């Protein structure tokens, strides 16, 4: 697995773990699948929870002053790109 792919897989596991999802495995989540609303069906509270879990797990901070930070949470691929960029920063 490439680094990108393995990070995506890790984030899928994190989503399942942090949000307590049942009957779903990492393989069931598409990297480009929309996480919130339709798609995986997560809600705004999940978004808040996931924001905290991502920051804690990867030791990064969501820049609260940047606009549209929540766009990074669109899907697993965008989250992985965000984590990679913040870790490099």
């Amino acid at each position: 697995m490439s680094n990108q792919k393995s990070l995506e897989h890790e984030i899928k596991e994190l989503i399942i773990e942090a949000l307590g999802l049942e009957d779903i495995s990492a393989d069931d989540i598409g990297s480009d699948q929309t996480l919130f609303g339709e798609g995986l069906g997560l809600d705004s509270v999940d978004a808040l929870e996931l924001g905290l879990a991502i920051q804690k797990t990867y030791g990064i901070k969501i820049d609260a002053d940047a606009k549209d930070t929540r766009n990074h949470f669109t899907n697993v691929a965008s989250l992985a790109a965000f984590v990679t960029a913040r870790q490099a920063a």
Partner: protein
Amino acid sequence: MNGLKLEHLLLEPLQQRWVTTEPDMNHAQLWEASLRLAAGLQARGIQRLAVYLEDAGVLAIALLGAWRAGASVLLPADLQPQTRQRWAPAVDAWLTEVADLEALYQAPLSPAVLDLDSCQLSLCTSGSSGEPKRIDKSLRQLANEVQALEALWGADLKDACIIGSVATQHIYGLLFRVLWPLCAGRLFVRKQLAFPEDMQRASREYPRFAWVASPALLKRMGDNLDWPALSRVARVFSSGGALPVEAAGSLYDRLQQWPTEILGSSETGGIAWRQGAQPWQPFADVQLSQDADGALRIASKYLPEGHVEQTADAARIHADGRFELLGRLDRIVKLEEKRISLPMLEQALMTHSWVAETRLGVVQENRASLGALVVLSAAGLHALRNQGRRTLTQTLRQHLGQHCEALALPRRWRLLRQLPLNSQGKLPQAEVEALLLAPRPKAPQVLEQVEADGEWTVQLSVPPDLTYFSGHFPVTPVLPGVVQVEWAFNLGQQLLDLPGTFAGMEVLKFQQLVRPGDQIELHLRFDRERRKLYFAYRNGVAACSSGRIVLEAAHA
């Protein structure tokens, strides 16, 4: 501050009084738009209006315009098709976006005092039966609340801009984000800001600001925020549900002030407030009493004249009038400020042909969510066996999705052979919640065990929710052979006092699949000379599997 009474908001245009920003709107613009909307509503004979607007500034225009035109306003909780359908007979028109207002604008009506007793507003909430409930309020009730809030905290807030994370469709957001600032002459932010980062960015725009928030947000604010900058916040309001003590304490550490919690509901209006771990302080206009069960009863100027509202909240009232809440007396739960009726969801779940019985409870983990204990019908068991657990739970979730919002959909499912009712035929809620927290079973349920001539016959029920079924196989769950051997070994140890440990297997045969919910018979016999445990599983007349487990001395 330049306070105006709610009924006087449309008397004269005030250029110097700001209402909101992005885009800017001063009171004169609000005044004109409201009167133009009122003219359009009157011209079209619209008397009953449903309003769902995400922009608090536009909502202010809609409310004032409707009241000036003598139209009643209904604020539905959402815009789902069922919601629209439900209220369709009760309304003449819907305002859901700016264009809907613009289409109605005409030459303005004359300014006038709003009639506090004839102007109406209706809020929607889920009642205890689960049916959405409509709560009608007069403008007088709302005006009384606004006055009380300003009397308590107006001097403290001064010209703070009001920034909110909650929706304005409900009483708390409507009062705190729209009607109160409108009357007080405070600026408010148009949009509901659901994320802490957005709250921070909005806060930076103003020298003074206050937050109208809820526990869902306040208990999830991270270290990524600029807390020193945010500690300028004039006051942090929280309502909609209980704010955990730890969340309040953490806000105190970061902001050097306790959040101000507001207790109330659409039905009751404001009841009381508190800061930190203090008892609740009733608002000045509120008279409390209790019924025989200790549940609070409320009378206040925020309710219709003479009405006493019975709640299901048990309370202890102190001598000084302050009180503590002791919990709900019914099966209504709150998840992230959303009121959810468990009986209603259970009824809805029961209408699905796969469900024979069900009980719901709250699973308290990272976030609180619902879990369902389900006894499957024959059709449900068939679905589980042939389509798998995931399809089963997804289908039931989808079925429920027609009856409730996504947040209330059970996230955890436990499939049981029967509900473990106690001797009174009840299943206490604590027991439901314990069952939901417990891991899925790994062992069979032993129904009966008899011995004859050294051979044991054990009747087993294969739990429908056995943990092994999820991966083996996702769409056609069958009991893995290795698990059958393990069960035989474990039961053999219990029943036959086996010497030694597992050393291997012989003549294993798997003839028929064992599936969720099956009742099977296990035969066990131990040949002490050869140190072999003979086992055979049968399902009725059919042989499922058989073999021998070889044992060796405990210590070789």
